[in-house]
């Protein structure tokens, strides 16, 4: 703060950054190398510019064991967006109900939601699969996304956000003649916009990275997400083309990075300010 550069801090910072960036850089360079060279363990830190064509190739043609990457990116994006928006809508509504309304068993409802926090997707995956199967939703897009939409965490976060909204704001809106829907739409959601944006980033990345559930529920290659696709490429029967796998991995990284970068300003604001 006194204008002088704090060298030890910078050294630690650079070391940390290198530690995080090195594996990613390796993947980026690896994607441009010759597959046989990688198989022999000859990884280079310098990308081979001539190998960049692999990106266009995986995008449109795909790799042995998996379809074209553009399709898997679409499936992943569709899933991540549906999960993120679905979670936000459901959680805002349920948090609105338990925070602003007085009804019988209000706290019971809240605690039931809260308790489900203790049950991660993996624990309830068999019953969930059975339910989806009974509903005939196996190998469908709703089957891929709907079970992941209910969210205790987001409900809890929104409840905290809403509790911090001054009562007078609701009372002022009531005197202005705003009913429950109008208050939600005109006042509460805009006031919580920063928190919603922050949560959107987290939930998008969560949805994007889903692995176990898509693996179980969607066996149709048309519903392969990019994460599943990468695994499928690392085949056991054929020789794995590592440069293609790495190129796909790089492409899989880009959308979450884009979302984080676009929403960064809101994200930090939402997590730190509690902007009221």
């Amino acid at each position: 703060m006194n204008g002088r550069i704090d060298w030890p801090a910078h050294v630690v910072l650079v070391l940390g950054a290198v530690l995080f960036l090195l594996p990613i850089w390796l993947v980026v360079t690896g994607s441009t190398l010759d597959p046989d060279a990688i198989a022999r363990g000859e990884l280079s830190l310098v990308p081979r510019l001539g190998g960049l064509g692999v990106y266009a190739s995986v995008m449109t043609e795909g790799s042995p064991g998996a379809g074209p990457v553009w399709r898997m990116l679409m499936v992943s994006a569709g899933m991540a967006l549906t999960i993120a928006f679905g979670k936000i809508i459901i959680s805002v509504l349920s948090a609105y109900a338990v925070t602003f309304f007085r009804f019988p068993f209000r706290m019971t409802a809240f605690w039931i939601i809260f308790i489900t926090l203790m049950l991660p997707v993996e624990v309830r995956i068999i019953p969930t699969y059975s339910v989806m199967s009974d509903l005939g939703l196996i190998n469908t897009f709703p089957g891929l996304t709907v079970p992941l939409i209910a969210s205790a965490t987001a409900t809890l976060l929104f409840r905290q956000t809403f509790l911090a909204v001054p009562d007078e704001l609701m009372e002022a809106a009531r005197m202005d003649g705003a009913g429950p829907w109008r208050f939600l739409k005109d006042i509460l959601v805009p006031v919580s916009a920063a928190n919603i944006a922050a949560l959107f980033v987290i939930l998008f990345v969560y949805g994007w990275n889903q692995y176990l559930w898509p693996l179980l529920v969607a066996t149709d290659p048309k519903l392969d997400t990019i994460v599943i696709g990468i695994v499928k490429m690392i085949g056991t029967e054929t020789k794995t083309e590592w440069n293609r796998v790495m190129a796909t991995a790089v492409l899989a990284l880009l959308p979450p990075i884009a979302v984080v970068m676009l929403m960064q300003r809101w994200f930090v604001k939402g997590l730190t300010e509690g902007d009221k």
Partner: protein
Amino acid sequence: MASLVLKDLSKSFGNVAVLHGIDLTMQSGEMLVIVGASGCGKSTLLRLVAGLEAPTSGRILLDERDMAPLDPAERDIAMVFQNYALYPHMTVFDNMAYGLRIRGLARGDIKARVESAADMLGLLPLLGRKPRQLSGGQRQRVAMGRAIVRQPKLFLFDEPLSNLDAKLRVQMRAEIRRLQRRMGVTSLYVTHDQVEAMTLGDRLLVLHQGRGVQLATPMEVFDRPANTYVAGFIGAPSMNMLPATLSHGGTAAVTSLGAVIPFADGRRPGEDGRRLILGIRPEHVALDPAGVVLQIDLVEPLGSETVVIGRLPDGDLFSVKLPGASPSAETIGVSIPPDALHVFDAETGLRLPGGSAP
């Protein structure tokens, strides 16, 4: 213009009774100030009128219409909140226009109303700003503007000046009064600040522990407080209270220090020896070298006057407000002019008016 009538209005939260049977009739265009210490139920009373809380019993009539079945928005009442409750994401214009939009007014009407209110409050240059870009005083104005544009039958003010600094408070106080007179809207104003209460109200309702203790004009409340609570609450510094007993056939009081003070306004009922509390405002105490000796404890110079807090020979605190500079001595002699005396019953705390027959 509307008249407000409260009939035997009570409110309990669970087992806790907050208001006990408030009766009140307000004339059209009147500004009535509800004053009391925190926790006396004054804000609850306001919220009942606004419709934000439902009364446990009793009735609220606005222009002879029962308010009970109506939502806050249907009551034609506007409220200014203590922390202003402005919508943080809306501009000043939108804050004021929101209620009108919900009511479905035409765009042109909304714009005209908001601009005329903004003009009245000096907010025209600020209409495009967000609340966070405004100073406390400006936010206060926006909150008032939001109430004004509605053109309601009744204004409710919930301690609207308590978040402002002292200078701004004085300025806004005058402004509220001017606006209210000009618009002639019946207003109910809640405050704990006795200066606000005295200066703003056509009448005061003093609330104490959920009961209306006195309803009268500010000067009446000051000159003839109904009981010891009102006497101590209104006026700064507080009225001095001295224990005393009735004597001389009800025509005088004897203080615990033995001083005999005759009543200037007639005799009080009761046997000699009845326990009384005598009240005397600090500004009415007379300097008297032959009077009771006051050991000076603390001197608070206020410029045009000086407050002297001292101890009576029996150790009780006693304050005196003197015009001009502070006395240099360590003791002063004081006496109580009989015509400035307030007499209360020691048991009930109620005022004992003079002039009862022997």
